[in-house]
């Protein structure tokens, strides 16, 4: 998947503060209200499909993306929902980032 995928593509690129790039499907990314608004706007991110997060560290962003997958998988699921494990030392930062991303 090319880094500057067009907005119509299935994948978007999320970039952490350290410059790590995560490729996720639109569907997963759009679990976040903020990202959804970005992709549905007519601004730069919607066109480029690249979203930088200069204030979110790689570790937190990764966890966040994991959560998005988790949420998508188990929303309205009838199977038993496993616990989503969060390291305590990351908890607060994750909280902040979730607030930011409207998760």
């Amino acid at each position: 998947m090319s880094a500057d995928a067009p907005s119509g593509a299935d994948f978007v690129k999320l970039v952490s503060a350290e410059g790590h790039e995560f490729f996720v499907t639109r569907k997963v990314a759009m679990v976040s209200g903020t990202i959804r608004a970005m992709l549905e706007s007519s601004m730069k991110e919607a066109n480029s499909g690249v979203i930088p997060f200069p204030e979110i560290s790689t570790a937190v962003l990764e966890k966040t993306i994991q959560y998005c997958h988790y949420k998508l998988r188990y929303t309205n699921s009838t199977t038993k929902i496993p616990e989503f494990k969060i390291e305590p030392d990351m908890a607060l930062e994750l909280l902040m980032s979730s607030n930011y991303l409207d998760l």
Partner: protein
Amino acid sequence: MSSASSFGGRGSSNVGSSNSAKKKFVIKPYRSAPQVDRASALETWSNLRRAIEEIYNQDASLLSFEELYRSAYNLVLHKHGEVLYTGVQSCVESHLTGVGETVSKSLDASVMKNVSAAWEDHDLKMTMVRDSICMYMDRTYVKQQKKKPIHEVGLQAFREKIWERKDVRGRVERVLLGEVAREREGELVEKDIIRSVLVMLIKIGGRGEGGVYEKDFEEMFLEGTKEFYRRESQEYLTKNSAPDYVRKAEERLLHERNRIANYLHLTTGPKLMGIVENELITTHARALVEMDNSGVVTMLENDKVTELMNMYNLFKLVPSTVDILRDAVCDHVKRKGKQLVQDQERVKDPIKFVRGVLDMRDRYDQVVEKAFDGEKKAGKKVKEAFEHFINADSRSANYLAVYVDELMRSGLKGCGEQEADERLDKAVTIFRYLQDKDVFENFYKTSLAKRLLGGKSVSDECEKSMVAKLKAECGYQYTSKLEGMFNDMRISKDTMKGYKDEMRGEKSTGEDDGDGVEIDVDVLTTGYWPSQGDPQCHLPEPVTNAIGKFEQYYLKTHSGRKLAWQTSLGTAEIKACFEGRRHELIVSTYQMCILALFDGRGDKPLTLPEIKQISGIPNNELRRHLISLCTPKHKILKKASKGKAISEDDSFTVNSSFTSKLKRVKVPLVSMKETSKGSDAAAGNGGVPKAVEEDRRHLLEAAIVRIMKARKTLKHNDLIAEVSRQLSARFAPDPQSVKKRIESLIEREYLERNQDDRKVYSYLA
């Protein structure tokens, strides 16, 4: 943007020593990020402000959503929400003030287009601003401070800065209503613009009472509509016929419905249609129905079923007006029925009358079926109308009986089983309309008796099926007597067979009666048959002998019974010799008696008083039967006087020169016009024949006693109601006569009045 990172990798909480058995969390207070002071906050805002301006200038695609969002996020997070909120607000307001100026300068022709374009632009831009810059603020700051979300701030600004300008709102309203009016006049208008303006009004104004759409448009629009249709319908009605008006109204309704679909808000639909229907239908319904030369009466007269159907379909939109229509049809049927009854009074042809009723029924059934879509209510109304006029004339029951009599005697001749059945069914439908079913029964019984005894019925099957139909209508009791009559006929046949067998046996043993008189007897059960009450006449001796024998035979098998001979009924065959020509004459019993008197008298005359005295035949009947014997065609007797009538002391001789081509001559009876007229009139005036009156008295008393026995005590009104209900299948009792019966029962101590309340009766065991 240089605000401190909030999500740095720096640990902000520590985990207790990992080697201890139990993990312990020690959570230190979160070290807040470096405060963003007011100055840098303002700087951030000015950046954002520039971004908003760029959005307004259509340059949004170059902006970074994330950057804007993050800036705004940090402002709010660091307690500078107010800066952002008021900033955005004033920014939007000042922008819209500018737009308002521009819009207000546009010409009437383009003001709608411009204002709706301004709205669409505003809507789009506000969405962008809200989503990027204000999303986080809306979610947190606005909620906490209980302020209006930024989008609503935008709406309010749009309302205040653009819509509520006099030079905008007033003009748009005027142009808008003008456009609608133009469209109603049949001109083409730009529906899309109207729709977008209306959508705008809905969006900026909120919903419900006091919303911009309702206040600034709907109210005036509905008012205008009302005016328009009030005027138009009034005008149209005076100039056009009812069917034209109906067509026009349908057209208008369709237009308005399209208008709703094209650009009005859904909630306006019912209000608009309500007004239009009220102006077009409700107000004029009566005038339409009653319109001279094209109203309902004309439609019915000229069989304009389609027009009537159109009218019904139109009126159906306002259910209350359909009543007017149904009533009009009902009245018309009543009027027609009354006319039919009056015609009948002139021509005195019951059969024609019943046919007329049947034709009317067919016709109005069709009307209900086609024009009223088979609607039950309309059917009921028409039925009521029929009941009304049929029961208004108490002779209807008689006519119907005569009609059925005619069917049974000749009308059904040559009909297939099915056709006969259909015709009887039709008669039964009229029967259903009758309230005085017992009167019908009375007449029917009389005519049935004549048919049965005279052997005049076309088919027994038809007779039986008619009785079965009546039974299905009114129950077992109603027809029990009629069935009894059939039964008597059957048993009589068997009896006669037995009797004749025995007679033959006697003959063979040489015991001959010698007179050569054979008799056929129908044994009738008293009560089932209409009572004749005529006195017995003196029968010729040979006949007396014969019936004596039959009596012996009959009473042998049925001891304890009493036979009374109905000499006013029956027929006889006599052999007569006229100057050598032998004829068999078929005559009535009375005529037989008369002729027997002339047997062996030669040319010697008999006077009327003599005949009367010897035969004992009642005067009226005697005259009638004598006249029948003196008619030019069947001149068996010669009378001394000239003319048709018989004078008091007339004398008669046998006409020995009587001739006929036939060997068997049937002497028909002249009808009893004068006499029957008398009894008919009695029935017509009093309403009910005496015999029926008598029956009713018994039925009423029986019903009252039955009810009181079950209830023990009952109020006067309840009792009357209950009696009416129970007897409604046979006739509609009039309260006055019920009251008389109650009084009579009290006299005879079946009932008593309650001591405390005189209106309450109690039953005395």
